C-alpha cells in the first residue's frame, strides 16, 4: 500500500456540513418550499396496459371542466424523439421516446397530463379522458425478450445518436462484448471451474422527496425551472431539445434536493412543467406521489448474470467469463452504460489474464430502469463475489486470503479498463491507490473472521444458525474523457470567497466537500467559503451528481481554482509590498514574506483591490477534465443468523473497510458509506416489486415495499482506510456508490456459511430462503 497519507488542515477534518443546521431547522429550502402566486397543478393519466396502441383519445370533456387549463397527449405534445436519461451529449442512451407516445409500453407509461387550477380539479379531469386502446401481448421475462414475436418499439424510429449496436426489431437495446487474453486456454489451465447464474430483482431508489419541478416565466420572458434534479445542465440542454426553444431562454435552478441516488438523473417531471409553463405563461408544479415514484419513475436494472471462473490449486485465477442480460424495461434509459459498468466496475478487481464479457440489454413491458447508485456493479458483484467464494472453497483456501492474494494491487492495471468503457472502449489506466488489503485485514479483525468456525458453534442454536460472509468491491471516480467540471470564485473585502460550482449537492454534502478542498489550497477555513451550486445562469458547468464524480472531479477543479487565485493573491501582494513574488507564501488568510516578516491579510487585499490600490477583481474560473477513473475499494464482512424453521435471515453485524483515498470529510464519508450499505442490505433482504400477470406493480407504497428502518439495523462499523490517489484532489477518490454493491453477495455468502445452502436470487426473504432450504435437502 502507498504509505503516503494526506493529513490536511481543512480536508480530512469533519467540518460541519454547510446546510446541516438550516435543514435541521426545517428552513424552506426544497423545490416545493417556495410560494408561487397563481400556481397551476399537474396530474398524470397512466396506461393500465403493459402494451397497447392508443387508437383514440378524447380530452374534450376534461378540457371543458372548470379550472382545467390545458391537456397534453401524444397528439399535441412535442414530437421530438429523445431519451429521458440526463447524460452528457451525445447521450449514450437510445432516443426511443417522445414526451407522450402513441404506443404505450408498460403499466405506468404516460397517456395524458392535465394542468388545472388545483390538483383536485386536475385529478377529476383525468377521469373524463376517454381512451380507446388496442392491446397487445406483452413481454415480461427479460430472458425471453430478445427476438420475441412481440416487438415493443415497432415504430421504426428509435435509434442511438452514437455509433453503437441497436436492434429495436428484436427488443435488443444494447450489446457489448470484450475479450482479453485466451479464455479457452485459461479454462484449460484451471484445476477447478465454477459457474453460477444469478438474478437480481427490481428495486427503487426511494428518495424521501419524490420528483418535483416547478416552472415559471421570469420578468424577461424566460423559462425558469426549479427542479429536484441531479443534472441541472443536462436538464437545460434536454429541455431546449424537447421544447424546441433556444437554450438561452431556459434557466434551471437546483434548490436543496431530498435525495436522488440516480433516479433524479432523469427528466421526468421537468419537461411536463416546462411545456405547460411555456404554453400558459404561468407557474406550474408537478410533484410525483409515492405511488407514481414506484410505477413511473426509474428502477434498478434487473439482470440475469452468468459468471464462470477457473482457478489453479495455488489460487491463481486463470479465466473469468461474464454474460449479462439486462432488463431496461419499456425504455432504454442508461441501457448501454449500465451494461458496460457491470463488467468494467467488477472484472478489474482480481488478477486474471483471460477474460470475456458479453452483455445484452433488452426491452420488456415493465417499469423503466435507469441510473441507480452502483450502476450495474451492484448486479455483477452478486455473481462474481459468490463465485469467488466458491473458487476459494473448491481449492480449500480461506476466502479472505484468496481475495488478498488475487485483488489488484497498487501500480497494476487491468486489460478491462481499456476493453470496457462507458458504452464504448475504455481508457487504459493503472490503479495508483489501493488500500484493499488493509480493508480486508482490518475488517477481518473486527468481525473476528479467523475464529468464525468457533464463533459459529458457540452462537448457533438448533434452529438459528450463524454464518459469516465477505466480499470485495470496487467502483470508479468519474467518467474519463467524458466528464468535465468547473468552479468560479471571487474574493470579498473581508477575505471570504464566493465559490460557485455547477456540482449538484443532492444531500451528499458536496457543497461542503468542495469548500474544504478549495479552502485547503488557500490557507483559509471552510467557513470562509460561501458556496452557491447548480444554477445554469450563474454557476459554471458541471456534468452533475452521478458516476461518483463530484469529489474527485469537481474537487480537482477546485484545487486548480485555488491555485489560480493563489497566484493572483501573491502577485497582488508582491506589487503592494514591493517584494519578489517567489518569496511570498500563503498562511492563515495572509500573504507573508517570511524573511522580512512583512505581510498583508486577504481582507486587506480584498478591500484595497476593490477600492483603492491596483484595483482589480481577484477571482478566477477553473475546470478539470477527467482523465482516469480511480476505483475506490471496499471489503465487506457480515455475520448473519438464519432461522431454519422460518427462513428468516437476520444480519447481526456488518463491518466495512473503505478506501476512498483521502477522506476529505470523514463523517460525510461514513454517512455515504453507511447510507449506501443500509440501502444495499434493505435491497438484499426485503425490497422487491410484485407484479400481477398484466405487469402492474402490486405494492407501490412504503407500507408494502419494505425499506429498512431503525429497528431493522444490524450493528454496523465503518473503517476508513486512507490512501493517497495521485490524480485526485488532495489524494481523494470517490465513495458514493461502492458500498451499495456488497450486501447481496456478502449476505448470500454468509447464508451459505451458516446452512450450506446457496441462494442466488435475492431478496433473501423468509419464503425464498425456506424454499431454498427445502430444495437443498431434497438433493
Amino acid at each position, binding site marked *: 500500500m502507498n504509505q503516503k497519507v494526506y493529513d490536511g488542515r481543512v480536508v480530512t477534518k469533519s467540518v*460541519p456540513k454547510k446546510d446541516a443546521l438550516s435543514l435541521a431547522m426545517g428552513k424552506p429550502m426544497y423545490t416545493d418550499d417556495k410560494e408561487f402566486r397563481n400556481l397551476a397543478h399537474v396530474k398524470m393519466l397512466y396506461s393500465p396496459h403493459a402494451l397497447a396502441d392508443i387508437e383514440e383519445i378524447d380530452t374534450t370533456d376534461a378540457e371543458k371542466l372548470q379550472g382545467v387549463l390545458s391537456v397534453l397527449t401524444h397528439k399535441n405534445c412535442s414530437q421530438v424523439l429523445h431519451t429521458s436519461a440526463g447524460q452528457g451529449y451525445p447521450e449514450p442512451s437510445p432516443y426511443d421516446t417522445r414526451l407522450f407516445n402513441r404506443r404505450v409500453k408498460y403499466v405506468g407509461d404516460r397517456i395524458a397530463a392535465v394542468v388545472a387550477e388545483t390538483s383536485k380539479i386536475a385529478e377529476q379531469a383525468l377521469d373524463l379522458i376517454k381512451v380507446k386502446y388496442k392491446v397487445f401481448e406483452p413481454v415480461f421475462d427479460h430472458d425471453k425478450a430478445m427476438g420475441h414475436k412481440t416487438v415493443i418499439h415497432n415504430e421504426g424510429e428509435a435509434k442511438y445518436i452514437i455509433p453503437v449496436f441497436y436492434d429495436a426489431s428484436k427488443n435488443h437495446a444494447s450489446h457489448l462484448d470484450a475479450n482479453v487474453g485466451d479464455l479457452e486456454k485459461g479454462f484449460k489451465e484451471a484445476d477447478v471451474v465454477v459457474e453460477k447464474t444469478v438474478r437480481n430483482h427490481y428495486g427503487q431508489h426511494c428518495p424521501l422527496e419524490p420528483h418535483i419541478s416547478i416552472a415559471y416565466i421570469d420578468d424577461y420572458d424566460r423559462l425558469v425551472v426549479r427542479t429536484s434534479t441531479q443534472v441541472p445542465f443536462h436538464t437545460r440542454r434536454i429541455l431546449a431539445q424537447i421544447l424546441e426553444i433556444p437554450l438561452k431562454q431556459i434557466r434551471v435552478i437546483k434548490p436543496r434536493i431530498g435525495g436522488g441516488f440516480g433516479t433524479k438523473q432523469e427528466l421526468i417531471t421537468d419537461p411536463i412543467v416546462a411545456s405547460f409553463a411555456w404554453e400558459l405563461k404561468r407557474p406550474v408544479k408537478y410533484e410525483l406521489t409515492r405511488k407514481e415514484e414506484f410505477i413511473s419513475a426509474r428502477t434498478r436494472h434487473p439482470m440475469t448474470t452468468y459468471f464462470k471462473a477457473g482457478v489453479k490449486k495455488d489460487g491463481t485465477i486463470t479465466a473469468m467469463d461474464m454474460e449479462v442480460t439486462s432488463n431496461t424495461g419499456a425504455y432504454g434509459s442508461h441501457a448501454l452504460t449500465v451494461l458496460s459498468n457491470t463488467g468494467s466496475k467488477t472484472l478489474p478487481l482480481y488478477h486474471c489474464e483471460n477474460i470475456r464479457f458479453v452483455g445484452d440489454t433488452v426491452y420488456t413491458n415493465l417499469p423503466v430502469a435507469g441510473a441507480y447508485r452502483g450502476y450495474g456493479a451492484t448486479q455483477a458483484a452478486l455473481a462474481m463475489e459468490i463465485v469467488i467464494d466458491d473458487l476459494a472453497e473448491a481449492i480449500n483456501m480461506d476466502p479472505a486470503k484468496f481475495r488478498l492474494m488475487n485483488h489488484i494491487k497498487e501500480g497494476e492495471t487491468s486489460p478491462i479498463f481499456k476493453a470496457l468503457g462507458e458504452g464504448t472502449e475504455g481508457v487504459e489506466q493503472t490503479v495508483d491507490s489501493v488500500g484493499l488489503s488493509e480493508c480486508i485485514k482490518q475488517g477481518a479483525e473486527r468481525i473476528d473472521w479467523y475464529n468464525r468456525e468457533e464463533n459459529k458453534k458457540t452462537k448457533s442454536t438448533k434452529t438459528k444458525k450463524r454464518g459469516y460472509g465477505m466480499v470485495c468491491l470496487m467502483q470508479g471516480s468519474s467518467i474519463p474523457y467524458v466528464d468535465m467540471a468547473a468552479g468560479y470564485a471571487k474574493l470579498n473585502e473581508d477575505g471570504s470567497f464566493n465559490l460557485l460550482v455547477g456540482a449538484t449537492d443532492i444531500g451528499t454534502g458536496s457543497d461542503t466537500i468542495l469548500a474544504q478542498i478549495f479552502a485547503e489550497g488557500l490557507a483559509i477555513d471552510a467557513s470562509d467559503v460561501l458556496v452557491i451550486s447548480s444554477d445554469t445562469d450563474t454557476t459554471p458547468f458541471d456534468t452533475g451528481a452521478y458516476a461518483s464524480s463530484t469529489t474527485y472531479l469537481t474537487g480537482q477543479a477546485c484545487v486548480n481554482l485555488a491555485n489560480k487565485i493563489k497566484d493572483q493573491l501573491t502577485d497582488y501582494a508582491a506589487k503592494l509590498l514591493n517584494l519578489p513574488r517567489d518569496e511570498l507564501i500563503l498562511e492563515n488568510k495572509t500573504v507573508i514574506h517570511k524573511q522580512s516578516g512583512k505581510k498583508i491579510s486577504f481582507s486587506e487585499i480584498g478591500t484595497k483591490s476593490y477600492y483603492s490600490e491596483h484595483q482589480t477583481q481577484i477571482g478566477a474560473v477553473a475546470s478539470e477534465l477527467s482523465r482516469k477513473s480511480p476505483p475506490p475499494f471496499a471489503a465487506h464482512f457480515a455475520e448473519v443468523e438464519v432461522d431454519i424453521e422460518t427462513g428468516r435471515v437476520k444480519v447481526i453485524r456488518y463491518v466495512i473497510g473503505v478506501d476512498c483515498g483521502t477522506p476529505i470529510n470523514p463523517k460525510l464519508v461514513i454517512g455515504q458509506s453507511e*447510507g449506501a450499505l443500509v440501502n444495499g442490505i434493505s435491497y438484499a433482504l426485503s425490497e422487491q416489486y410484485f407484479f400481477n400477470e398484466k405487469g402492474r406493480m402490486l405494492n407501490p407504497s*412504503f407500507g408494502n415495499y419494505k425499506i429498512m428502518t*431503525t429497528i431493522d439495523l444490524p450493528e454496523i462499523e465503518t473503517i476508513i482506510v486512507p490512501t493517497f490517489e495521485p490524480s485526485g484532489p488532495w489524494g481523494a477518490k470517490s465513495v458514493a456508490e461502492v458500498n451499495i454493491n456488497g450486501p447481496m453477495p456478502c449476505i448470500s455468502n454468509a447464508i451459505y456459511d451458516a446452512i450450506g445452502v446457496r441462494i442466488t436470487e435475492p431478496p433473501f426473504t423468509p419464503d425464498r430462503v425456506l424454499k431454498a432450504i427445502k430444495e437443498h435437502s431434497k438433493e
Partner: protein
Amino acid sequence: MSLLLKVKINGVEKKIEIQPNEILIDVLRREGYKGVKRGCNEGTCGTCTIIFNEKTVKSCIMLAAQAQNGTITTIEGIGTHEKPHPIQEAFVEAGVVQCGFCIPGMILSAKNLLDNNPNPTKAEVKMALDGNLCRCTGYRGQIEAVLKAAAVIRGEK
C-alpha cells in the same frame, strides 16, 4: 363551508380558516410551516411528523379539523440558528443531516421521546425513530446523536 381552526402552533395561538376535508399537512404548509415535509402522503415515511398534544403524529393522515383546540409543535418551533435545540446541535455535530428531508420529522420524534423519557436506552431510541424513514444515512449516526443530545439535556455533557 369553511371552519375556523383554533390551534396553538409553536406556542402561538392561531385562528386559521380551513375546509372540513382539509388534511393537516396541507394547512400547515399553507400557513408557512414548510418544515413539514411530504414524502408519501399516506402515513408511512414520517417526513410530515409533528408533535400534537404531546404525541407524534403523521400530519398527512390527520384532518386539520381534528386539531381543533389542540397544541402543535413543528420543527420551526424548537430551535433557532442562534439557539438550536440540543438534538439539532447533535445531528449537525454528528454529520447525519444529508439530504435533510427526513430530518425535521426525525428530530420531532426524538424530541417527543426525550420530553417523555430523558434517559432512553438505544433500543428505545430506535423504537422512537422507527416511523421516520431515511434513505441517505443508514440511521446509526442519528441514533447515537439522539443519545448524545439526551445526555446534554440531562446536563451530563
